[in-house]
């Protein structure tokens, strides 16, 4: 029994170390962002919030941030609408070609982003389509679509069919059944899908580097480009802002989802 306890303790210490390895570097960036030195590296010379002001008033950085928001917002809204519709079909119907549909909609998840980036770029080139914000956003839509389908489909499957059947018996048609029975119950999951597909698109860099039009930077490609020269303190401040955003938004989303679920207990 004694050795048992020691084993569990040793494993606990190991787990703490590994979780520290996964989480600490990111916090170091946040701390470093408050450093006075313009070099963007240690040693720590003094505490200041100056670099956040620099980032928030930098035209190029703010433009890249706005680009990212625009692309991810449009892409996640489209992906959520298209993905939820197909998720409903997969969850509720046994139709001819269902297995193929399911496989096709999962496919973007299996293709490495590098290959997606190259292949879509090549198709646009072959068709003579110039790179634009629209083509970049289209790429993002297809990349995040599977996440919405997987998240939302699960929820649709857990809503008892009897609820919809009751609506039909009471005279509702299919569309009314979806609008008035299914959607209100599934909305937390759909919003979760929207949120996570937004974050996924916002963080994407590998394919975006291939797809971005000339002179258009998203915030991720902007950071990559800045790191190619010397690390300056603006990168750390920008990264710190992104970290706070990346952690803040999902946490906010989960809290909201919990509130909605509490009010809509099935």
């Amino acid at each position, binding site marked *: 029994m004694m050795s*048992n306890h020691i084993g569990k303790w040793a*494993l*606990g210490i*190991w*787990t703490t170390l*590994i*979780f520290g390895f*996964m*989480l600490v*570097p990111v916090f*170091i960036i946040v701390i470093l962002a408050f450093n006075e030195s313009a070099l963007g*590296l*240690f040693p720590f010379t003094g505490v200041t919030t100056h670099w956040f002001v620099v980032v928030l008033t930098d035209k190029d950085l703010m433009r890249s941030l706005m680009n990212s928001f625009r692309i991810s917002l449009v892409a996640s809204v489209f992906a959520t609408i*298209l*993905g939820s*519709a*197909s998720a409903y*079909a*997969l969850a509720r119907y046994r*139709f001819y*070609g269902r297995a193929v*549909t399911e496989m*096709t*909609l999962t*496919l973007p*998840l*299996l*293709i*490495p*982003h*590098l*290959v997606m980036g*190259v*292949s*879509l770029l*090549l*198709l646009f*080139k072959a068709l003579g389509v110039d790179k634009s914000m629209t083509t970049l956003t289209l790429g993002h*839509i*297809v990349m995040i*679509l599977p996440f919405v*389908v*997987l998240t939302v489909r699960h929820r649709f499957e857990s809503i008892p069919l009897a609820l919809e059947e009751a609506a039909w018996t009471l005279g509702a048609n*299919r569309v009314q059944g979806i609008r008035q029975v299914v959607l209100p119950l599934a909305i937390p999951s759909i919003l979760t899908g929207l949120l996570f597909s937004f*974050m996924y698109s916002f*963080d994407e*860099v*590998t394919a975006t580097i*291939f797809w971005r039009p000339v002179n258009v930077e998203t915030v*991720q490609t902007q950071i*990559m480009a800045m790191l*190619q020269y010397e*690390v300056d303190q603006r*990168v*750390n401040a920008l*990264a710190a802002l*992104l970290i706070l955003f*990346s*952690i803040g938004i*999902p946490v906010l989303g989960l809290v909201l989802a919990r509130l909605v679920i509490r009010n809509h207990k099935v």
Partner: protein
Amino acid sequence: MARSINLSIARAALFPYALSLPALVIVVGLVVIPLLTLGVYSFWSQALDGRIDATFTLKTWATLFEDAFVAGVMFDTFRLAFGTMLICGVVGYGPAYFMTIVSPRWRGILAILLFLPSWISYVVRTMSWIPILGKTGIINTALTASGITSAPLALLYNEFSIYMGLVHYLLPLMILNIYLGLLSVEPSVIAAARTLGANQYETFIRIIFPLSVPGLSAGCLLCFILSLGTFVTPKILGSPGMLFYGNLVYETIVHQIDWPTGAMLSLVIIFLLIALLYIYSRFLNLSTVLRAVKS
């Protein structure tokens, strides 16, 4: 009357198609057809002035087997991907197992901490190693201040920092997959082994570990595939001279603008992917690989 019923049945039958068609069109148009385009371009050639010669040739594919440089890059990349996968598996098994033996409350906390890094962008997580490993970074400052080394060690912009970055990026995914694998082990099976006289060590070696192999393999497969295609980590944490497969593709497309070669190199990744998935599916259930995404 009968006609209108038939009509409504036909419309009801078309309903699932109408719902899934837009998403399907997007995936076919923006993923499937581009992949086919890769296939076509890899059999074409490109003149020095950049014009594409649309006649069938095996020239591009021949470079894959003749060019020692490409073979060298591939070998380095395999080594990197395999090493990363191995480190993640060895280092990550313990924490994943620990998550299954703690109380549900701690399990929930650890699960949230495990998801936390995956919300932060790949680029930011990768760059976070620069102030840690750099010449004036935390590790070197600590080493020189404590007198362990007299001069700072070269920890950044080499293969060591690339491994650090990749393991840091992929470890949460590995732990999640092993954890999900371990969760699917029936507690009654463990209880049965204990009742039949196995001690905790024997139970782990002979029961728990073998049953967790599908999750572990899914994690390994994902880590291997994701490190195989990366060019972001070497670009941020490597030196300009270090070329891995992803960087080679990037250079070919973005700087040399050599479409046929870029298409061919991308297809090689797809073929490798198919081969790996095929091998995996021969022994284990392929749906295990997608399980981590669904959760």
